[in-house]
């Protein structure tokens, strides 16, 4: 078909699809669809954004995805970006029906971006600001050399997940005060603050032994989860361009974080709606078959991982069912009148993230129906170890906590009084990958410029990993 005609037909279908979606109550941004060849879609997929900075790790993903596509092992049909207007990229060579499904799917994503609470603070002009950042990175490459910039990015991305996405949560001061309040005796060093305090520091020869003092002098005053920010603000090692690179990487992570913490909901929501919308649109026989084939491909399950599309879709459908048609028990216990299904799922999509979504709506019946289980490595074999629904749900929830990354905080930015960085992993029963710890700490040294320590737990014993710029060490503490 001639490309112009193709565009025209697509436009007609899109008009019907958007009208249908609005009728259903979806509330999305203005849409900007773009048809791209495969290597472009895969580039965007690898980078997460068309305009992102350049780095070999993206090249690695791109290579992997592109190879899979070339060997016909996997295919992404679309790529959608949380922005206003909302950009969506369609794969050139998609059939008309594939494009219809993808467009319906994407409209629901756009609705989700626009209405889910966790996206409230995301920068909707990220396409432009990423482009500007990429341009600056290129300039740094000219100025400081490609290898230097590249290896700095290597170091910065090694801790990029360690940010604090809950920017609105007030912290620090309150908890500290509460703790100090509990102490009975005031320390002799603890006096009201005056503008001349720094004078006293000159002759601070004698050490204070009481615990209160130590507490008060701590830096940071409270354990800091945003390691990226802490280093940007406090590292004595970094030059301005390096601080800029770290800030950009942190901003981008803040932008992507809500997508990571709502993956199941977001994909479930989009799948729920592409199904509903496509059912309302006239399809001929062969289109119906192709649509069914494609949909079943999307919700295909795996024995080793959760398919977010399937799980999210099932939960949304289940919520709708339970609020439309509550059991007598539910009616009585929760005062649920029935017929509120649609309303309820719209509320859920606006207020929950994956963790609360699963905690609140993954029921015993669903776990059993979906045949979810927990498996674990025993010797050489990966075996199913638990099928109890609560265990499955809780394990799933805990694997999503902090988007699946270990929760690590800065405890001390002046450890040993030598400006060393002391990090602590909040151990909650899962050990860290030791090989990775030993390889990551040197990157932190690059960023901090002074020895770096990480406390965690192995075999139920506290252990401290350290790196002093030359070699790493570990000792049980």
């Amino acid at each position, binding site marked *: 078909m001639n490309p112009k005609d193709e565009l025209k037909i697509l436009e007609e279908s899109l008009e019907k699809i958007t009208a249908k979606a609005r009728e259903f109550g979806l509330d999305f941004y203005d849409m900007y*669809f773009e048809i791209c060849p495969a290597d472009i879609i895969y580039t965007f997929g690898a980078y997460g954004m068309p305009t992102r900075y350049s780095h070999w790790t993206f090249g690695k993903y791109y290579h992997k995805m592109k190879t899979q596509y070339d060997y016909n092992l996997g295919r992404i049909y679309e790529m959608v970006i949380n922005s206003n207007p909302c950009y969506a990229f369609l794969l050139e060579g998609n059939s008309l029906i594939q494009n219809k499904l993808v467009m319906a799917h994407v409209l629901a994503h756009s609705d989700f971006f626009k209405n889910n609470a966790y996206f409230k603070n995301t920068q909707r002009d990220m396409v432009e600001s990423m482009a500007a950042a990429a341009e600056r990175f290129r300039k740094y490459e000219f100025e400081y050399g490609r290898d230097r910039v590249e290896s700095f990015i290597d170091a910065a991305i090694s801790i990029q997940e360690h940010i604090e996405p809950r920017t609105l949560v007030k912290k620090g001061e309150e908890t500290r005060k509460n703790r100090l309040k509990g102490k009975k005796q005031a320390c002799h060093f603890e006096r009201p603050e005056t503008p001349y305090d720094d004078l006293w520091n000159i002759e601070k020869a004698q050490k204070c032994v009481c615990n209160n003092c130590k507490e008060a002098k701590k830096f940071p005053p409270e354990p800091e989860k945003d390691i990226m920010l802490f280093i940007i603000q406090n590292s004595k090692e970094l030059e301005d361009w390096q601080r800029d690179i770290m800030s950009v990487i942190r901003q981008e992570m803040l932008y992507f974080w809500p997508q990571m913490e709502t993956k199941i909901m977001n994909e479930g929501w989009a799948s729920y709606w592409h199904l509903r919308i496509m059912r309302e649109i006239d399809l001929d026989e062969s289109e119906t078959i192709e649509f069914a084939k494609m949909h079943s491909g999307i919700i295909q399950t795996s024995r080793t991982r959760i398919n977010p599309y399937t799980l999210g879709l099932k939960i949304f459908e289940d919520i709708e069912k339970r609020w439309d048609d509550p059991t007598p028990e539910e009616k009585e216990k929760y005062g649920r009148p029935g017929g509120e299904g649609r309303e309820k799922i719209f509320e859920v999509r606006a207020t929950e993230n994956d963790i609360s979504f699963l905690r609140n709506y993954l029921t015993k019946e669903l776990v059993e129906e979906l045949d979810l289980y927990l498996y674990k490595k025993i010797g050489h074999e990966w075996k199913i170890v638990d099928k109890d629904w609560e265990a499955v749900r809780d394990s799933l929830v805990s694997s999503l906590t902090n988007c699946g990354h270990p929760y690590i905080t800065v405890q001390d930015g002046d450890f040993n009084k030598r400006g060393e960085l002391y990090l602590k992993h909040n151990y909650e029963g899962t050990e860290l990958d030791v090989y990775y710890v030993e390889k990551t700490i040197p990157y932190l040294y690059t960023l901090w410029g002074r020895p770096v320590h990480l406390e965690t737990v192995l075999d139920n014993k506290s252990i401290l990993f350290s790196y002093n710029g030359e070699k790493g060490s570990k000792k049980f503490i």
Partner: protein
Amino acid sequence: MSGKGFVISREDWSLHRKGEIDRERHMEKVREAIKKNLADIVSEESIIMHDGHKVVKVPIRSLDEFHFRFDYGKQKHVGQGDGKSKKGDVIFTDPQQGKGQGKGAGEEPGIDYYEAEVTIDELADMIFEDLGLPNLEQKKKPELASESVEFKDVRKKGITSNIDRKRTIIEAIKRNALKGKPGLHGITPEDLRFKTWEKTYKFESNAVVLAMMDTSGSMGVFEKYIARSFFFWMVRFLRTKYNNVQIVFLAHHTEARETTEEEFFTKGTSGGTRCSSVYKLALDVIEKRYSPQDYNIYAFHFSDGDNLVSDNELCIKLINELLKVCNMVGYGEIEGAYYYTSTLKTAYKRINSPKFTSVTIKDKSGVYPALKKFFSQAPDQAVN
């Protein structure tokens, strides 16, 4: 944006090359990493034991993106069954060492390090980059030179049967285009192009590797594997230098005999060790089958050094004899699980010939340095 609330468009993306550029950078890093890790990769089992596949997978840990993460193997994970799963079901078994990874991509849990795919030839090029052949002697008998014909030139005159059709047509198209009438019409004599040959001389050169190994009880699987990796690359390397490389396997304990490759690397015997036996056999083989006038001879002997002390003097004598007929003689001592105060290596310190090299290999990663040492081109021993 139109009133409809959407736009569909199609742009020209042909200049958007970012993915390709970063992919190229990634591949560059893969090659760098392979080079840096040659010592480990050289003795990678999947290569030495490769079953004719041209492409091998090499794990490259340095291209992992390190960050703080949980230990995958110690975590519980959630999976989804087909409705009939029950406690105790095995959903996946880790591939055992040496076996191929059969499962489809994306199904195995836990395999998350980066594996680069390289061809054995690419790998060989990298390994051989720093290797050279020292002690090249002009063979007394000139190498057999055979004349051969190679088409490597294009001319305007030639034999009709050798017309280069493609080039001729291109010339015609070019000429027409210049005249402002593009297309293929009317081939004139000026357009004709002919393929032309040149005479070249091909030098037939032969080399033979005498692979000698101690197969006495003290040589275990590990020791044999080291020897195997070494010979694998040695033969491959010599093939880049000579047209024809043969390899003769000579195994020994207290007595030596010629074996097949299979036997050489798999069968073991018990008993003591008398290295002189294999040197005698080697000299014998050279005398009977591989005249030093026609062949470049490379002899290499692997042992754990646990030789009968009374035999050492004889060994030195025989090595000196081998040195007279061979291009190079090497001795590799493998320090395995048991530690012997080696007698042989100490004894060989007395051999003073630039053609003799002795190396000690402690583990798998020692194979590459050993190759480098054996095939190093020391400046004072440079060719001629």
